[in-house]
């Protein structure tokens, strides 16, 4: 247990040290642009920049000094081939590198684009962005936590749980007994347990890490539509692969429905087929929207401070008291939402698996 803590500490300290060194060379940057930006506070952009993915990981700013962790940009362009470089080459989006730049306006705002014949062209972009890195960090944490827990299960066979084990055990048992068993059924639930446990802990951990405002948190992983899309896709694929005959039969030829709803216009089958896709779609949107909305509200409250601060510094300080109180309240709510959304995603996935494998008589 002890060396786990030490490892974590060193790991995150190391993550935090890199940006300080990396930002050293950015210090020479002209400050005029920065101060110009500072004078005009745009709450919309402020919120979007914090919610959206980015190519570097901003840690903190002191005056014009920005400590950011540079991340690898990996792009493949049809015009200039394969490129891989650190995002620090963009100097916070202020300069080009190898013909690439971060678009500041338009359709590709905040994304890496290549200027081809005066047009911004989006290359094939598999950069390790902030969200990707945060997601990978959370994966490492998951692997590490649960493999060590599994080890303590084999080491302390048949004994009462201890430490981390006793923290995750009730959750695992809850997922098994309150989600998987009732939703899927006693006979087949075991097959889906690994997936349900993985998504539950992945979503919960990332929801929580998204609430931490500094490294390794701060990335909006579960509030990213791509991440939730992959999760929903997994649920969709597992549902469809394991679905039995009666599930498909219910879609193509729904029993208990008047024949004229199916023939000559296959209205019911159409609705049912749409349902197959809306289920994962809703999963994707629900998680994304809940987490993003929570972050937006928190950021909006923080923005209030700067908006009023622009009018007069005193007003800004005054607002900060109220804003911080609201932010604390929102964070408490978000803590709850983090758990609830993980639970809901897991429960609905389990229900879909249950529906797909249900035996009809």
């Amino acid at each position, binding site marked *: 247990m002890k060396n786990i803590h030490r490892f974590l500490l060193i790991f995150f300290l190391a993550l935090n040290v890199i940006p300080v060194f990396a930002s050293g060379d950015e210090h020479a940057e002209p400050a005029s642009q920065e101060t110009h930006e500072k004078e005009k506070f745009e709450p919309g952009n402020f919120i979007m920049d914090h919610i959206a993915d980015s190519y570097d990981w901003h840690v903190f700013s002191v005056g014009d000094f920005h400590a950011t962790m540079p991340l690898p940009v990996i792009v493949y362009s049809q015009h200039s081939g394969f490129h891989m470089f650190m995002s620090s080459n963009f100097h916070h989006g202020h300069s080009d590198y190898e013909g690439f730049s971060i678009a500041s306006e338009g359709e*590709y705002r905040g994304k890496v684009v290549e200027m081809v014949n005066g047009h911004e062209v989006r290359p094939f972009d598999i950069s390790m962005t902030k969200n990707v890195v945060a997601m990978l960090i959370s994966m490492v944490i998951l692997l590490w936590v649960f493999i060590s827990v599994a080890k303590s299960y084999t080491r302390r066979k048949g004994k009462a749980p201890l430490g981390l084990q006793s923290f995750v055990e009730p959750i695992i048992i809850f997922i098994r007994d309150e989600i998987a068993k009732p939703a899927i059924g006693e006979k087949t639930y075991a097959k889906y347990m690994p997936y349900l446990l993985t998504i539950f802990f992945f979503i919960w951990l990332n929801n929580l890490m998204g609430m931490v405002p500094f490294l390794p948190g701060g990335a909006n992983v579960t509030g990213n539509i791509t991440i939730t899309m992959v999760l929903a896709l997994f649920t969709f694929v597992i549902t469809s692969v394991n679905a039995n005959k009666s599930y498909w039969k219910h879609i193509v030829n729904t029993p208990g429905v008047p024949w004229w709803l199916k023939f000559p216009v296959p209205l019911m089958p159409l609705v049912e087929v749409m349902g197959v896709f809306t289920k994962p779609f809703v999963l994707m949107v629900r998680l994304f929207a809940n987490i993003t909305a929570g972050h937006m509200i928190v950021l909006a409250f923080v923005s209030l401070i700067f908006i009023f601060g622009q009018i007069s510094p005193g007003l800004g300080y005054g607002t900060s008291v109220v804003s911080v109180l609201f932010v604390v309240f929102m964070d408490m709510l978000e803590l709850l939402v983090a758990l609830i959304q993980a639970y809901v995603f897991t429960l609905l996935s389990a229900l879909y698996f249950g529906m797909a494998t249900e035996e009809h008589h």
Partner: protein
Amino acid sequence: MGLVTPELGTFIWMLLAFAIVLFILKKFAWKPILSALKEREDSIEEALCSAERAKEEMAALQADNERILQEARKEREAMLKEAKEMGSKLVSEAKQKATLEADKVIESARINIESEKSAALNEIKAQVALLSVEIAEKILRQQFADDQQQKDYFKKLMDEVKLN
């Protein structure tokens, strides 16, 4: 809007990472954890069952003991009762016997006394007769010391006797 547009790069990374993590966790974490939990639950279940069984056995044993104790108590009571009855019977019998004996003794004593008394009375009677005779003799001797007197008395007696 950029916020709701899926990114291919993120998608690929997430797909890969999630698939790998799912696979690794399944193999090295969830399987051992779930099987360990199952095992432990089974063993707890079994332990509870055997504890229940032991409890039942214990209860049966206790009931047995209780029954034996009850029986012993009943037996003791019966024995005590019997002994008491025997005792009282013996006492009453002894009493009866004693009374009988006493009656007999009293009876014989009475008979004795009676016979003694009659003997004594007879003796007294004899004594009295003897004494009366002696006294009469003495009186007579006294009376008849004087011849005149004898003659008078004789005469008187003769007068009384009327020869018819």
